[in-house]
Structures are given as structure tokens and as C-alpha cells.
């Protein structure tokens, strides 16, 4: 009985979301609003640690921003309005997923462009090889003599024949 209980407890603990830094006092009473808040804060970068979202980060600034996001939601802002509020202060860099705009075109489409360029290059090269196979230059007299010597003066035989 005791062991079963311990196992159940361990499993329950293992199932907890391990990474979120949200402390209980930050959580909103309204579960749908809280879910929206979590969704938003997962998209926002913590500028103190730079590779964590503010949902994951324990930095005091991340906590302040989590609370701020929840306040904006409670005040009735839509998700995109809340994100715009934070971006207006911290710039596009707070977005973990960079927006598609003129300055980020190279970032978003660069890899596809590189792939396309390489594909075109390879295709052109393959086509050139196929349409115009380069015929080997005929042997000159000197080379022919050497070859004949190597072949023992015999006419070439097929390799591997008995």
C-alpha cells in the first residue's frame, strides 16, 4: 500500500511541467485567461537570459513582464495587442519567432534561396554533361605506342574473360 502510494506520488511529480517559472501567486483565477497568458509569455524572449522565454525564466524582469502581460489581459486587451505592447518597448528582439518583414526576408527566405540556387546550379551542370559529353581526346602516336607496350603487343582483350 505504502509503496503504491509512493509510486503514484512520484509519477504525479514527474508529470508536472518541469520548466515553467510561473509562481502560484502570478496565476490568474480565470483559467482561459491564464491559458492565453501562458501562450503569450511562451512567445516572448526574456532579455536577461536571451534564450529563454519569459514563461521559462526565473529572472526578476521576466516575472515583472509575466505580471504585466496578465494585467493587460485582465484589462481586456487581445493577444496581439498585448504582444504589440511589449514589442513597442523592447523591439522585435523580444519575439522568439521573428516577424516576416522586409528586414527579415533574408532570414526567412535565405535558406530556400540557397537551396534553389544550388538546385539550379546542379541541374544546369548535369544537363551540360548529358547533352555535350566531352569526348576524350584521341591518343597521339606516342601514347598509342606506350599503351601497346603495356598491353604486350596484343590486341586488347576483355577483362575478366577466361
Amino acid at each position: 500500500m505504502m509503496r503504491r502510494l509512493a509510486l503514484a506520488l512520484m509519477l504525479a511529480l514527474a508529470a508536472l511541467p518541469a520548466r515553467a517559472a510561473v509562481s502560484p501567486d502570478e496565476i490568474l483565477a480565470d483559467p482561459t485567461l491564464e491559458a492565453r497568458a501562458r501562450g503569450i509569455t511562451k512567445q516572448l524572449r526574456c532579455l536577461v537570459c536571451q534564450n529563454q522565454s519569459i514563461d521559462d525564466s526565473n529572472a526578476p524582469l521576466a516575472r515583472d513582464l509575466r505580471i504585466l502581460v496578465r494585467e493587460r489581459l485582465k484589462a481586456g486587451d487581445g493577444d496581439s495587442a498585448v504582444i504589440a505592447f511589449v514589442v513597442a518597448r523592447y523591439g522585435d528582439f523580444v519575439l522568439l519567432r521573428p516577424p516576416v518583414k522586409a528586414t527579415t526576408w533574408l532570414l526567412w527566405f535565405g535558406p530556400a534561396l540557397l537551396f534553389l540556387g544550388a538546385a539550379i546550379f546542379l541541374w544546369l551542370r548535369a544537363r551540360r554533361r548529358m547533352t555535350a559529353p566531352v569526348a576524350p581526346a584521341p591518343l597521339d602516336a606516342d601514347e598509342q605506342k606506350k599503351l601497346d607496350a603495356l598491353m604486350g603487343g596484343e590486341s586488347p582483350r576483355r577483362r575478366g574473360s577466361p
Partner: protein
Amino acid sequence: MRLRFIIPAVLFLFLGAGLVYALVAIQSGKKDPSAVPSALIDKPAPEFSLPAPEGFPQGLSTADFKGKVTILNVFASWCPPCHAEHPLLLELAKEAKAGGFQLVGLNWKDKDEKLAAWFKEAGNPFSHIGADRSGRVGIDFGVYGAPETYIIDRDGRIRYRYAGPLTSERLRDEIRPLVAKLKR
């Protein structure tokens, strides 16, 4: 035929030169890859009005920026780099009157009594200090750590932001020239 070998060699040379340049720039402190550009450059400073911390005469509000070139320093007593740059701020404060600018402080997420104790010993370089106890005004400025230094022009627009402790090189190369330009 020879060209086939030259093209990759030249490309590689360019790549190598670029990498060496970046490495040198980072090592010498000219370039900081983790620096975040301010979203507020050339935009009006956010509206705020903050009381002075206990024991200091002048609070800070947006209205204080009108008509003057302002250097705004975001600082806190709990932040070691702020202590490190403090002598430079005192130096800057001495130039303020003749230099035609004001040096003001945003005391970010600090305790009034700790600040008072520090400045009693080290001296106060600021003509105005706003006590941003909750850090909300800091967030409006896009502050993500202390210290940060802003330059605000006479129309109340943010023209410059540097995140990190000031050095005498930065004062000489960036802060003083920009202040001199804005004052004209």
C-alpha cells in the same frame, strides 16, 4: 580552368576576413553580439512621473526633459556595475552646467534606504532622481538590466541608449559628442 580554383579561394578569403573582423571587434569591445537595439530610438520618451526616493529633493517626470538635453542613467544600489561607473557619473555631473545638459537618474527597483546609504558615502551625481520601485517605468523605456544610459534631446526624444556600465572611452567617443551635437 585556373579560375575554378581561384573563385573558392577568394570566397574563402572573404569569409576568413569577415570572421577575423568580427572576432577582433568583439574582443576589443566595439561590438557586443548580445546587445539589444532600443525600440525607442528617435521616439518620444515614455510619459511618467515619479517621486524622489526618501531623502532626495527632486523627483523625475517626462516634463523635466522639455527644453534640455538630458543624460538619463538607469541605476540601482544592488547593481555592482552601477558602482563601477559611479565615478564617471560624478565626473559627468561636474560638466553638466558648462556643458549645457542635465544628468538625471532613474532608480530602478531599488530600496530608498539602500540608495540613501550608498549616495551618502559616494556622492549624488544626479539633479533629479525618479524612484521606480516597481520597475514599470523601466519597462516603458525597454530597460532590461542596470545600468543603462539614455540621451534625450530637447524635444523629449530618445536619441541614444547604451546598456552596460559606462567607460571613459564611451563617454569620449559617443556620449560627449552626441550631447554636444544635440545642444547646438
